[in-house]
């Protein structure tokens, strides 16, 4: 039988999970009856709670955040346990054949409804998110933009709850081939390049942005027309608008 000293010595190893599988099982069994070790393990977990943050963060691929939300929400709608045997029974009916047409028709309908429901759910969640930023905006700024004969504008909704900007650009035509409409942050240490904005007539462009990592207080924003693929960190092309907070 393992002595209590062994468990004392291996508390941290249990918390960080470096014990061998059989040792880990043994430790779990011990914890069930040892209040002292339970308390020490909990204390150690609290002390090391942030250690996983030593990893470099990984930027989620496009769409993953929405997929994770849908996945978590979808878990509550997961098919009940009886669905599997019912499906098996339906398969048997398929083998018989007499019900094949009716079953496959209904099943196909259910599948298409399910796919459509998932798609609509994703769109609804994205729309809610975008509207949420606009609704909760603690600060809204607007500036007119004149581009030849076109008159449009730039609107910035700054949401202090979710800590993002929703930027809307409207009334501007698509850039000429080889050009992009570039969004910039104006900081007290200079202009900081952000993202291209996909402008097109008849449909406002929306982008959701975080603040730049470069040091300096954000004081405003600007739009310029730049050459496509330019890696220049400073604006080179004509400025369409600038907007101070």
């Amino acid at each position: 039988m393992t002595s209590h000293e062994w468990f004392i010595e291996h508390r941290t190893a249990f918390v960080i999970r470096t014990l061998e599988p059989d040792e880990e099982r043994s430790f779990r069994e011990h914890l069930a009856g040892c209040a002292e070790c339970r308390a020490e393990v909990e204390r150690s977990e609290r002390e090391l709670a942030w250690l996983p943050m030593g990893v470099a963060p990984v930027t989620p691929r496009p769409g993953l955040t929405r997929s994770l939300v849908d996945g978590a929400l979808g878990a509550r709608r997961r098919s009940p346990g009886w669905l599997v045997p019912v499906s098996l029974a339906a398969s048997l009916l398929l083998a018989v054949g007499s019900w094949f047409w009716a079953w496959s028709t209904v099943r196909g309908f259910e599948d298409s409804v399910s796919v459509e429901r998932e798609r609509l759910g994703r769109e609804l969640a994205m729309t809610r998110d975008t509207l949420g930023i606009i609704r909760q905006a603690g600060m809204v700024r607007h500036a007119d933009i004149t581009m030849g004969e076109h008159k449009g504008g730039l609107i910035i909704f700054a949401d202090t709850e979710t800590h993002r900007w929703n930027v809307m650009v409207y009334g501007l035509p698509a850039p000429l081939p080889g050009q992009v409409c570039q969004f910039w942050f104006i900081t007290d240490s200079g202009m900081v390049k952000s993202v291209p904005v996909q402008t097109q007539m008849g449909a406002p462009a929306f982008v959701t942005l975080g603040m730049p990592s470069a040091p300096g207080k954000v004081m405003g924003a600007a739009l310029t027309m730049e050459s496509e693929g330019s890696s220049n960190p400073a604006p080179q092309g004509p400025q369409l608008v600038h907007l101070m907070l």
Partner: protein
Amino acid sequence: MPEPDPRSPGSFSPDRLDGGPAGRLLSLEREASLQARLLARDERALVELVEIATPWLLGVAQGMLSDRDEAEEVVQEAFTIAWRRVDLFDRESGRLIPWLLRITRNRAIDRLRGQRRRVLKARRLESFQVFGDGSTAPQEPDEAARPGWHVHETVHAALRQLPDEQRTVVHLAYFEGLTHSEIAGQLGIPLGTVKTRLRLAFDKLRGGLASIRDWVL
């Protein structure tokens, strides 16, 4: 400059506008509010939690599993648990984000200890290098403004204070998910040496992390 996802989670900090410290986003009050809203099944709270925590959870899972798809599955499991079992989360005994980090890490380790993964991991570790230069320099635009970056920097500072041989075993144990015997085999050192180095390292780490024990993102 990498093309950002226009729908990707941002990291706008009001502190940047105030001239305050960057990245401190999840205040105690907001975390409590977030948990209460999760308990009330507010789906927007889940969206917020996913946006804040996903980059870090992905970092944990991908670092251990070396497989982006599998890491995403693990993160999905963590959020599903958070959504379904938030009522079991005891706010007094921990914090929301560390709870998620722990779930993710434990799930990743459970997968890692499957036989197939163990073999793949062993192969990958043949080209193992410890932490590089330990740099925490942002790798992507806006990364330093990401919620939690200040915690990341503090953890790295604590890790950098360790002697190389201790940092190596911590990396293999904590961030790669290896057991004592696997570390000993990997480094070709006695099991007792592994345990000693880990004990000394974690004694120091506790001190280094004490200042952020009760921090929030």
